[in-house]
């Protein structure tokens, strides 16, 4: 038998031949002892291997085996998360950042408004400590306008 015939015999065994070719091989098996012997050997090996895979058991415990997998998954998590964990937090980011910005602006604005208010307030002005000078030949003239909200202090040194 040549190589091509041997491979066709194997294809017949594995049901990989077209029906017309299968009939030819079936015919060959009736008349050729050589083909029949080879076919019998191939079939025996096929049947033997197919039903007899040896079970190779893992020696590692479930926990130990999983720990390495979990570590690797965690290491690659940000880039390749199958579920929407990151998306779950993304809505928060989408809202917190703008609102946070607006809140910060509001606080700054309130502080900015508070400063002239305190200056306008008489009570707050009263809290400003008096300035005293003991230097000879120095005189002070002060002026305060409540309507303008300003105080002017004129220091005159001779």
């Amino acid at each position, binding site marked *: 038998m040549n190589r091509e015939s041997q491979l066709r015999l194997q294809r017949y065994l594995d049901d990989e031949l077209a029906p017309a070719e299968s009939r030819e091989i079936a015919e060959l098996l009736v008349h050729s002892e050589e083909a029949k012997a080879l076919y019998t*050997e191939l079939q025996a090996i096929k049947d033997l291997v197919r039903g007899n895979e040896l079970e190779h058991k893992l020696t590692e415990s479930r926990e130990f085996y999983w720990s390495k997998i979990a570590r*690797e*998954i965690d290491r690659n998590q940000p880039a390749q998360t199958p579920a929407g964990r990151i998306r779950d937090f993304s809505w928060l980011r989408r809202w917190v950042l703008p609102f946070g910005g607006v809140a910060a602006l509001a606080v700054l604005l309130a502080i900015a408004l508070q400063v002239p208010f305190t200056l306008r307030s008489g009570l707050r002005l009263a809290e400003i400590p008096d300035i005293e000078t003991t230097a000879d030949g120095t005189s002070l003239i002060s002026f305060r306008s409540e309507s303008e909200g300003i105080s002017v202090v004129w220091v005159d040194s001779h």
Partner: protein
Amino acid sequence: MSTHTDKPPPSDEILVRLAQKGDMATFEELVARHRERIFARAFSIMRNEEEAIDLSQEAWVKGWQRLKQFHGDSSFATWMTRIVINLSLDQLRKQKRHRTESIEQMEEEAGGVERHMPVVMVNPTARLEQSELRQTIDKAMAQLSAEHRTVLVLHEFEQMEYKQIAKVVGCSIGTVMSRLFYARRRLASLLAGLKREEER
């Protein structure tokens, strides 16, 4: 009197759906269910326990990362098996770059030495228990080259067709047929030899 009936464990389909939503605990359950099978397939190709463990764990990491791509066209176990087969074949290709061709491979590629092997009548079931028989076959398969063993594993254990094997391995259908033929004939010869050794 109250009767207590245990709930059947959730199916793979249910666990996969939960895992696809990001439930790691569910994925761990899937790993526990199928880890032996995935390891065994890597081992049958690599014949090295450490490598097989590493490859099977890498397969699970890949499985998690690609879980959204699993649409249930095959069973989850089959899908995972394909992943570990691909990783094992990649590993073999990497190793092949660093080693010379095996004698078997050179013999096969030089012109079909398997054609001239005498036909062997294998009947190892005659006196062997099934566990012994399995060990004998496993021992013989370990002696095949990785290329020949892989084709045999994919055809007989995974029941893939020639076309599928060619696609997974990355070779022509002709090469698949040739490797399978050689692997079977060599295995017949090895089994006959092992049997003779035991009889002595």
